[in-house]
């Protein structure tokens, strides 16, 4: 065999052995643009829990939360709610998030098909916010849908709570 041909053969074999050419790798990572609409939630706003006494209870109706799902897929979304502990500025005193309970109440408005399930329909179903809880869910047809609910927070102040100005944050997460 001529040296040139031999060299060419060796090069060809090496090329196949060193893996797929860069083009194939790039093809595997190629993307195409999606034309979807979004999953949205109302902007948050602060509220005033007001004042209370140790051993007392504070109840607050939050501003209405609305979730809009225009994605058409997957047809379901879940809104969950969590709370931080409530703390004062230094010297820091804490009221644990377990003292805070939440109930979503029924949907105040819905649009689109599917099943809308409030997390806690009535005050009796209220859950404590020691952990993240389900606030609202939607499952069902591949349609544009939305749900609104006006949740209620109930803070049970421990008997041992020290005087102070406590603040905390409630988070609604939707996906």
């Amino acid at each position: 065999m001529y040296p040139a041909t031999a060299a060419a053969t060796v090069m060809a074999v090496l090329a196949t052995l060193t893996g797929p050419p860069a083009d194939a790798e790039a093809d595997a990572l190629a993307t195409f643009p999606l034309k979807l609409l979004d999953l949205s939630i109302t902007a948050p706003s602060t509220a005033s829990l007001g004042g209370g006494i140790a051993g007392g209870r504070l109840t607050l109706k939050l501003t209405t939360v609305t979730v809009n799902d225009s994605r058409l897929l997957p047809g379901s979304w879940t809104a969950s709610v969590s709370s931080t502990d409530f703390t004062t500025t230094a010297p820091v005193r804490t009221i644990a998030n377990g003292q805070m309970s939440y109930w979503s109440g029924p949907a105040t408005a819905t649009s689109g098909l599917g099943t809308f399930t409030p997390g806690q329909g009535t005050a009796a179903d209220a859950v404590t916010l020691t952990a993240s809880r389900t606030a609202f869910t939607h499952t069902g047809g591949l349609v544009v849908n939305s749900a609104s609910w006006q949740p209620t927070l109930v803070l049970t102040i421990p008997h041992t709570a020290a005087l102070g100005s406590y603040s905390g944050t409630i988070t609604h997460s939707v996906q």
Partner: protein
Amino acid sequence: MTLLATLALLAALAPSAAGTPIQAGKPAHRDRFGIKLLDAPVSRRKDPRARVGIVDHLKPGTVITRRIQVNNVSPKTHAIDVYPAAATIQHHALVPAPDRTPNELTSWVSTEHNRVQVPPWGQANVRVMIRVPRLASRGERYAIVWAQESAPPTAHRNLGMVNRVGIPIYLDIGPGGEPPSDMSIQSLTPERARNGRPQVIAQVRNTGERALTISGKLWLSDGPGGLRAGPYPATLGVTLAPGDVAPVTVVLDPRLPNGPWKARMVLQSGLVVKTATAKITFPVTGIGVSVALASAPRYGVPIGIALVLAVAGGLFLVWRRRHRWVTTIRAR
């Protein structure tokens, strides 16, 4: 275009007499913000799950970029934070971890911006980059890319609020090609819910190596008087981690007679499709007779025979030894 058609078109385009926006009749507008995914892999063009979230199978050492968009549906500029946080599959659903809890996957994810100022009625595109380390172990991980707005507590308003919307990430790491996705429908159980509606519950097992998001339909045929019904959609929202077993529910029309019916259930996750057929009868109340569908293991019968033979053989040997021993004693 005819004069009439032109007039009709102009009438449609003109604002209404009161000057109200097109969606008059909806509740009073409140500021809102949203998130959407802008890219999906070409290789997953037919996979509906790849439109829901960032779904991929990558080799260690790979870097991918996906774009997400944050939308502002309000007349004011809003500052929106964008960041990844951990998620897990629990109780057959993707559950976000609180706040900015990190996990292994989030340590690989970075966003082009941490905070975007989105103009009124505008959008902001944010690139999300995932860098898989060369020594990443194989397996599937989950996280969520969040678009978040915060209203922190102030001196006079002590309850702060944070709202966020997210796009899930289902990322599988491993050399070579995508690991298999598969599921098996183990049984179909007819039930009557407390509200009187008939339901069919399918027990589904994730027998593959990637999480599944189940959707599906049920058809009924060969019913009383030759009736047919359906298709009825399965309740969505069931996400199964590999090895998980979960019920998938189909709620049917309350006017259906009890049966018997031939039920055909088709369940799907992405490109995996499974069908199960069974003869069912809805109970008057409560849970009806379940129909098991999972086939017996193929090696069950030969193992059974082998066991019986082994036990028989063992017993025979024991009997032979005893007999010989007795003979030996007598011979003395």
